[in-house]
């Protein structure tokens, strides 16, 4: 018998079998799935809006498509249950949906800002809670929550987005603690600036990363049962300082 809670993954060598991606077209999400399949995962569910019926080819895996709308929390429970019907126990669940948007645009259109927050925070709350219910029942499985350093300390340059991520980060940590002892777990991922489709046209911030690098860090975190993963890792130290900078200085941060 195990004396303590340890990995809640299905196989002795840390490979998982099933993955559910909520927001099935996300670059980071697909990069994670690709790596999990390379490590032995066989069944993938991609849930996205207008999912269509042509699954992308991901390794040799069995890929299922489901319709999923992040902005309709009342449908999230059903999507999780449908995924479990398709592939059985869910080993890894990754909600990757989200919108970035510019602060200037949100200033001009507060309604759009509220809608973005509803997806970036509220959508993750319902999807996360429904997923947690399923994982708790299974007694195993990991919910991967894509937070951001933007939520670690919110900056004036993108405080609408940052505040949603701050809420999400807190939600994920609390959910992880609530699941402690159930066999299910939550892993919080905090990337810095990620160069990709979502940030097209923006100039990369220092210590930025690619979706592939984020995915690599997620895989390493899953293997070691990390609770929090920073990408790149040195952002942990950087933000230990950022967090305690006096507000007068913080407010002058250029971006």
């Amino acid at each position: 018998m195990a004396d303590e809670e340890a990995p809640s993954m299905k196989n002795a060598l840390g490979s998982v079998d099933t993955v559910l991606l909520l927001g099935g077209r996300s670059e980071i999400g697909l990069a994670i799935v690709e790596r999990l399949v390379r490590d032995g995962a066989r069944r993938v569910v991609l849930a996205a809006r207008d999912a269509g019926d042509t699954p992308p080819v991901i390794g040799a895996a069995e890929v299922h498509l489901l319709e999923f709308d992040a902005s309709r929390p009342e449908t999230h429970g059903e999507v999780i249950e449908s995924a479990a019907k398709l592939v059985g126990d869910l080993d890894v669940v990754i909600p990757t949906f989200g919108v970035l948007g510019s602060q200037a645009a949100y200033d001009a259109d507060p309604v759009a800002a509220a809608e973005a927050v509803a997806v970036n925070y509220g959508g993750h709350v319902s999807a996360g809670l429904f997923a947690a219910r399923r994982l708790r029942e299974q007694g195993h499985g990991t919910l991967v929550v894509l937070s951001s350093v933007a939520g670690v300390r919110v900056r004036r340059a993108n405080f609408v987005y940052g505040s949603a991520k701050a809420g999400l980060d807190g939600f994920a940590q609390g959910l992880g603690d609530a699941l402690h002892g159930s066999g299910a777990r939550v892993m919080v991922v905090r990337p810095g600036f990620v160069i990709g489709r979502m940030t097209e046209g923006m100039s990369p911030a220092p210590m930025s990363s690619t979706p592939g690098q984020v995915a690599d860090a997620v895989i390493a975190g899953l293997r070691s049962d990390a609770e929090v993963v920073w990408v790149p890792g040195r952002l942990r130290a950087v933000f230990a300082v950022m967090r305690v900078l006096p507000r007068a200085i913080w407010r002058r941060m250029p971006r």
Partner: protein
Amino acid sequence: MTFLTGWGRTAPTPARLARPRSAEEVAELVRRAPGRGVAARGLGRAYGDAAQNSGGLVLDCTALTSWSLDESSGLVTAAAGLSLHDLMTALVPRGWFVPVTPGTRHVTVGGAVAADVHGKNHHADSSFGAHLRSLTLVTADGGCRTLTPESELFWATVGGMGLTGVITEAVFRCVPIETSRMRVDVERTRDLDHTLETMTATDDRHRYTVAWIDLLASGGRMGRSVLTRGDHASRDELPRGADPLAFAPASRLKAPPWAPNGLLNPVTVRAFNEAWYRRARPRTGLVQGLSPFFHPLDSVDGWNRVYGSHGFVQYQFVVPFSEEATLRRIVSRLSAEGVVSFLTVLKRFGPGTPGMLSFPIPGWTLALDIPAGRRGLAVLLREFDGWVAEAGGRIYLAKDSRMSAGTAAAMYPRLGEWRKVRDEVDPGGVFRSDLARRLGL
């Protein structure tokens, strides 16, 4: 909820644990099975997740320990939770021995049936299932059935990893013995070819045979082995005055509760293997107790802890006799990679039982223990899986903790037939385990 693992101490999952005290209590628990199903558990010696049921109910069957012996025929009726250790302690002084024992006495009768276990006498006596007269099984409907070898369900249950129901009792024939000692021959071989040749040529002279392979030996010594062959000693082979049927397995040492990860590394294991090989001076007619011959590791309690916190996996496969090339390919790859495995065991299997998911088929079986934290292990073993499947071989479900459903289906050609029988007796999928989920059984 209690977190459970197998003997390899990998991938713990939580389950509600119940400890029924009778077959009636088992039936009652099965009738009230939760949605995540029921799995039976004995002493937890399966290496992987066979006796785990994440989020469901696990029946600890070790309170079912009644037994009786018919002294005239050697027929034993034993409850499923009785350990072979307790059974031997009772039987040996009466002049009887279990028909088959695996490398540890600390398995239950129920586990021995569910995994259709084999021992050093497989080439002569086949596996545990071959010696069974009947079984009692609590099925998904909460009923209790007595099964005999004429029924399909019997052979779906023997080797069926507990997925057809909860085995509560077994009746099997034991072996008469004159003494509690073994007459043992020890021989060393130079390399793998020499090992295979010697075993092929001389295995049939002994009831019990096994080879320990030094996997870290390389080059011209790759596959060098210590062959140990034995038979039950007769009374006149014992020193005068010895109690012929005395059986008191040595008091057990305890492995330290914690061991550093990496304690077993190429340096320490190479040293151990060298010492083991050298110590095994060729001898014939050595008289040895049952325990050191059959269960050397049982003298160290909790030896599975020396692999550190990541635990370990045991990789045991069998390939048919014509497929020595596959065996050679795997051994040379392990040797080249410097895979740390001590007590790697090679054995010749004879004919198997009709068990639909039973592991043994005529051929060579190799079993090795590898620390689970080893980098690249998943990829290496997946490669081996492919070779073994292609050779018409298979991996032992009671040892497995990492193969994929596709691999299992390729290796067990009678899986479809087994599923049909299982679906009939358990249409609602009451009996489940993490192993069954992982392999889609």
